[in-house]
């Protein structure tokens, strides 16, 4: 069964710092790796996703780096702000279009 291993479980960063969240996958059906951001009391929101025809994707302050040979991908948040404090999930997708979720990273950005 496909698995996605996400680390760290929690992360505290000063405002302006660059938190990095890492994920490792075993197998992938579609080479599609999304990141979701979830605030307390809300559903997960699609933040950014990468298809590994590229090794990096940027959207605003959020960047995904992808290493296909290592089967790893990571999320970087540039110039982090207290409003970025949330739980972040990485995911893989299986052949039935079902998301395989990482365990989540609770990120706190201190002012």
């Amino acid at each position: 069964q496909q698995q996605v291993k996400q680390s760290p479980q929690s992360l505290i960063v000063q405002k302006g710092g660059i938190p990095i969240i890492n994920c490792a996958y075993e197998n992938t059906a579609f080479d599609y790796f999304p990141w979701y951001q979830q605030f307390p009391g809300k559903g997960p929101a699609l933040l950014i996703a990468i298809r590994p025809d590229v090794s990096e994707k940027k959207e605003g302050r959020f960047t995904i780096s992808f290493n296909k040979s290592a089967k790893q991908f990571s999320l970087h948040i540039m110039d982090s702000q207290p409003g970025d404090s949330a739980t972040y999930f990485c995911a893989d997708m299986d052949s039935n279009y079902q998301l395989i979720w990482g365990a989540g990273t609770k990120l706190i950005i201190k002012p």
Partner: protein
Amino acid sequence: SAVISQKPSRDICQRGTSLTIQCQVDSQVTMMFWYRQQPGQSLTLIATANQGSEATYESGFVIDKFPISRPNLTFSTLTVSNMSPEDSSIYLCSVNRGGERDEQYFGPGTRLTVT
């Protein structure tokens, strides 16, 4: 993206009763999914609901406990039957946007507490 609403947003129910959660999407979608999420935990897929076919349940979830309807391409319901305190959780529906089957969007969730 898709705009998804869920009703109710939260409820407190007594043991032994049932609750039906509704999920409405602003556009037609092929695939809808129902998840359960314990506070502070990752998401667990309950079932996949495609219009015109029976829902497909994941290991550990059965139709008698979580019956699902999918009457059209914009609506689905999940019923949590014969509830116990262990069913207290957040229930989320998600959809694949038509035309790009790999992008999934989530509703706001239904917070269920069973006493």
